[in-house]
């Protein structure tokens, strides 16, 4: 097991002195090269969970280990992809992709070479010299994916990366992400509130309850890829997961 979350809980203290439990007792093991989605209604703490794994927040209790090694703080073996506003607007596309490599002190030629490789992977070679504001939303997220991959992390953490895109672009980027995932065999932890997206992408879906977020159910998706959204089995699984999510919304 590559990434192991053990009894992660997180509570926030409010201004009036009371505390709110955001996450409670989350235990999860993610295998190497596995694609796992964390699904839940807004406010269930799924983003908080991802941020804890990324080292951007500390859990109130519980531990995270990567290949048996305890993780506290940002790990060089993980890279996070945010929903939006993550590219540096003063840097060109290629300079954005080079950012992580620059941080690691790689030489200019080496990182240029590596960045072009990943630009090719996301199909944006012709846009190397453009600035983020010259790109569409879908292109910007491709750049963000390339920047994360460029540092060659073991694990990709994705926080609703396609949530701000229109439906068509989102579907295309989901397909591209699966292509990339199959080529690079990264472990992916993917946060989303879209049942459809989770069923389309994942090996397993972790369904969280509303606040405090607990694991309600882990749904393995056995369908072979590429998956067809119009497929009967796809629809059945989507219905099944949707029922779980909706039930929770009712009993909240």
């Amino acid at each position, binding site marked *: 097991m590559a990434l192991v979350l053990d009894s992660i809980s997180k509570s926030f203290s409010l201004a009036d002195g009371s505390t709110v439990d955001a996450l409670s007792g989350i235990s999860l093991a993610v295998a190497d090269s596995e694609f796992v989605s964390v699904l839940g209604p807004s406010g269930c703490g799924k983003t908080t969970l991802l941020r804890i794994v*990324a*080292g*951007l927040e500390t859990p109130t209790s519980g531990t995270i280990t990567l290949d048996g090694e305890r993780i506290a703080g*940002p790990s*060089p073996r*993980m*890279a*996070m992809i*945010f929903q*939006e*506003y*993550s*590219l*540096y*607007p*003063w840097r060109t596309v290629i300079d954005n992709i080079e*950012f*992580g490599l*620059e*941080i*690691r002190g790689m030489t200019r030629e080496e990182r240029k070479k590596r960045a072009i490789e990943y630009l090719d992977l996301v199909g944006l070679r012709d846009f190397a010299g453009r*600035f*983020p*504001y010259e790109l569409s*939303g879908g292109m*910007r997220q491709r750049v963000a994916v390339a*920047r994360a991959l460029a*540092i060659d992390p073991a694990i990709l*953490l994705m926080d609703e990366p396609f949530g701000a895109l229109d439906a068509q672009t989102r579907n295309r980027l989901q397909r591209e992400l699966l292509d990339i995932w199959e080529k690079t065999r990264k472990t992916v932890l993917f946060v989303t509130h879209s049942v459809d997206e989770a069923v389309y992408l994942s090996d397993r879906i972790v369904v969280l309850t509303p606040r405090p977020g607990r694991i309600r159910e882990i749904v393995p998706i056995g369908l072979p890829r590429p998956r067809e959204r119009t497929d009967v089995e796809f629809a059945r699984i989507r219905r099944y997961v949707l029922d779980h999510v909706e039930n929770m919304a009712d009993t909240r």
Partner: protein
Amino acid sequence: MRYQRVLLPIILVVAWEIAALAINNPFILPSLETVVPILINPFSASFTLGTGSLAENAAISIERVGLGFLLATAIAIPLGVLMGRSRALNDFFDSLIEILRPIPPLAWVPLALAWFKIGLTSIVFIIFIGAFFPILLNTIDGVKGVKKTWIEVATTLGASERQVLLKVVLPGAAPTVWTGLRVGFGIAWMCVVAAEWLPGISRGLGYLILYAYNFGQTNLIIAGMVVIGLIGLAIDLVFKKVEKKWFSWRGLER
């Protein structure tokens, strides 16, 4: 350039010439032909009542502004970055700054004279006061405006505090800091003219126009004012040009 942009200046010049002829008193309104020779011979000392050429005086004023402005920049930017990054430091300095900020730079003149005596230091101090606050406040704003996600991206990619500062916070705040520099320089340039009216000063564009007044040379006053305006305009254009070239991403963060 559209012709409308030059229409009003042309009308004004023509009206000026007609009015000058009608008034026929060069102390109230000198005619154009007594002003233009001064302007087209900026390196000649023969129009300036023995105070050195127009260019010489301009150079001295620019040097004074430059000193005060650089000093203000050197203190305001680091302080602004610290205040923008640290809530505690912001709270520590904020009330003092709020008290000092509304005091006009020229209100500092008597105190400047008491502290630094007559001379360059006093002038530079006044200019420093004028330029300091816009640079500081814009730097704080710029640093606070750096998007949280930009910093978190760097953090997750393993950036150190120093790298976050140099590669994310400073470039992210740069457009707003630049606005502060531009506004600060504008105010500094206004201050220098008044600061050169301090007793014991004997060079500079501000000095020159007051000196010209004492000799009833209104044509020299106007020539000096035109030069002051043109230099201010030219420097502002440079600021704008740089802004357009380097910071065109501003407002287009996505």
